[in-house]
């Protein structure tokens, strides 16, 4: 992978939020490690699927990447240039490289602005981004581009269906001709029969415009259809990343396995044959994450490993010491690009 291939690189990125108590004198009593040392790279013209449940830190990561939040540590490189510590004016420039598509088509459009104003706002903010031919023409072209009727620029968001609103959101993001589009669960709020339309539009735009996508999702199935590479987050850390084939065919972290197992298979004849992994409990609070491996409190594999690590172990079904005390590093597996953060990564797919 040569460096010019990579359009966005994230190195050891972290975002901590202080936890304060008290009304007058706010004492600093701890930190929420929403994102804790995440490294990613997104290749030009490709899609990286970022999967995690609520509380995994994927939304915070998105906010840091689009420049709404400042990272606590780490670097963000766009085309090889570090953009994590820019001044105000330069940050504005950066905004033109990374744009975002939101999850909820109902809250992501200002109800009091017409479609023309919403899509054209980018040109009001960046007057130098207006293409030749003027703002109105550019807006009409964008609407046409995303499959909407260009004559509808004077309509308001409530006159459109959810899928159409999502198209308006995509047109808004495309106005500044970004290199990278950050898609935050862009179809999960849509009707099933509409989801395919939006996914296909995104793929079409990628082919035509050479866009790179960071596609955030809470489950693995939709990512399978659009991503070239996949990264899985749990409690602020990456637990597994690799190419699409590697992650789906040889899932090497117990959490990835559980996520895959949680996706229902739409075939009733398989329901009794399939061995489901159902995780116990909820994701722990990021204010007070478990020691050692963050996942050990819910891990289905760890108890199975105990007997092997410590054959004379007193109790069965307890967690190996190493999982409770040592945080596993993201390590390479069968290929240098397939990484997993598990002490027993090699055993995951065997079980």
């Amino acid at each position, binding site marked *: 992978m040569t460096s010019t291939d990579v359009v966005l690189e994230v190195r050891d990125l972290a975002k901590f939020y202080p936890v304060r108590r008290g009304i007058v004198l706010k004492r600093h009593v701890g930190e929420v490690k929403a994102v804790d040392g995440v490294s990613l790279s997104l290749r030009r013209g490709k899609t990286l699927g970022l999967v995690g*449940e609520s509380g995994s830190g994927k939304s915070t990561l998105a906010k840091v990447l689009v420049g709404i939040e400042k990272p606590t540590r780490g670097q963000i490189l766009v085309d090889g240039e570090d953009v994590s510590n820019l001044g105000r004016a330069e940050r504005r420039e950066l905004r033109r490289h990374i744009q975002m598509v939101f999850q909820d088509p109902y809250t992501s459009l200002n109800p009091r602005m017409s479609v023309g104003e919403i899509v054209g706002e980018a040109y009001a903010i960046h007057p130098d981004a207006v293409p030749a031919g003027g703002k109105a023409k550019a807006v009409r072209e964008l609407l046409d581009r995303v499959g909407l009727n260009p004559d509808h620029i004077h309509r308001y968001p409530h006159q459109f269906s959810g899928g159409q609103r999502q198209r308006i959101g995509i047109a808004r993001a495309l106005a500044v001709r970004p290199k990278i589009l950050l898609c935050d669960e862009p179809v999960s709020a849509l009707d099933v*029969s509409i989801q*395919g339309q939006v*996914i296909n539009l995104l793929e079409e735009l990628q082919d035509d415009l050479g866009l790179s996508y960071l596609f955030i999702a809470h489950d*693995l199935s939709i990512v*399978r259809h659009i991503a070239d590479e996949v990264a899985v987050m749990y409690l602020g850390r990456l637990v597994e990343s690799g190419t699409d084939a590697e992650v789906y065919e040889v899932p090497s972290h117990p959490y990835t396995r559980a996520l895959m197992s949680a996706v*229902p298979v739409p075939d009733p004849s398989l329901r009794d044959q399939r061995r489901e992994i159902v995780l116990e409990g909820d994701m722990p609070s990021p204010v007070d994450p478990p020691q050692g491996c963050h996942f050990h409190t819910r891990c289905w594999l760890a108890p199975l490993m105990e007997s092997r690590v410590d054959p004379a172990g007193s109790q069965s079904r307890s967690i190996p010491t190493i999982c409770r005390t040592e945080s596993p590093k993201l390590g390479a597996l069968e290929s240098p690009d397939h990484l997993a953060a598990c002490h027993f990564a090699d055993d995951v797919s065997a079980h």
Partner: protein
Amino acid sequence: MTTDPTRDGTPVPLLQVDDLAIEFATPDGVVRAVDGLSYSVSAGRTLAIVGESGSGKSVSSLAVMGLLQQPPARIVRGSIRFGGTELLSLGQKAHRAVCGENIAMVFQDALAALNPVHTVGWQLTEALRARHGMSRRDATARAVELLDLVKVPNAKQRVKEYPHQFSGGMRQRVMIAMALSMDPEVLIADEPTTALDVTVQAQIMRLLSEIQAERQMGLILITHDMGVVANVADDVTVMYAGRAVEQASVFDIYAAPAHPYTRALLGSIPRLDQKGGGLAVIPGRPPDPTQVPAGCAFHPRCAFAEDVCRADPPPPTVSLPFDRTSACHFAEEVMNHDEH
């Protein structure tokens, strides 16, 4: 999970809905939200009602519960029978009383359905105290029992806590516990896992099917997710624009869908075992209830549509082998059509 998908020896249905039609008065005129819906649920069986937003799937279950706001809603015709009782002739108050004892409902948004100023234990036992005059101590004991039943860890402690102290998944468990508090014979779950994370969704679905199998309840699962349906349902009713377009056993419907909409829905599920190539697309969008297309409501989006579909509404039920029905002019052709 009932393992018995046999079609013989039809058990007496607990809840039977027949030819139900519901209209809404809106500023744009009268809208037919449900039109000629029939289904039945027996003890120990799971019926999945599948549809997109605006298909009428939630409205019909509100009608079953006697929770429709009338007006603007109006039940035009049809019958809803529980046991041998016709609920629609009872009047709303008596209707709700029957439901309160026998039919319970779990909603999608557990946070909105719980009262933030009362403890979870208080809410769990409100009905018991009000209807059965249970003492406080007995009620608390019962609340702990109920939370145990839905596998909320540390139930003794948690009955004293407030809804905001529970995670999304735990709140949905509380909702299920609340629904179970009156020992219902039928449970209606309206998108019970839509707002939840995938791993939690799997937990809740497993819990629901366990409880259902154990108590031999009738379960109506309202959802848009054909994946979930495949894992838990016995029978499936697919709704589109207020009508049941296809009704069949879960095995038949997945093996050979007999309505183009069902076929398209199955095709558009993102699957883990199929790579890329885009998702199958259903063109257009569900119709605006005020402007349902003439003829078959699905025809503008249908790959099988011909002139007759644009002109005439399909017969409400085309009977097919194995007790299944489909509201399509070309039901047999669609069923026997092999794409792959």
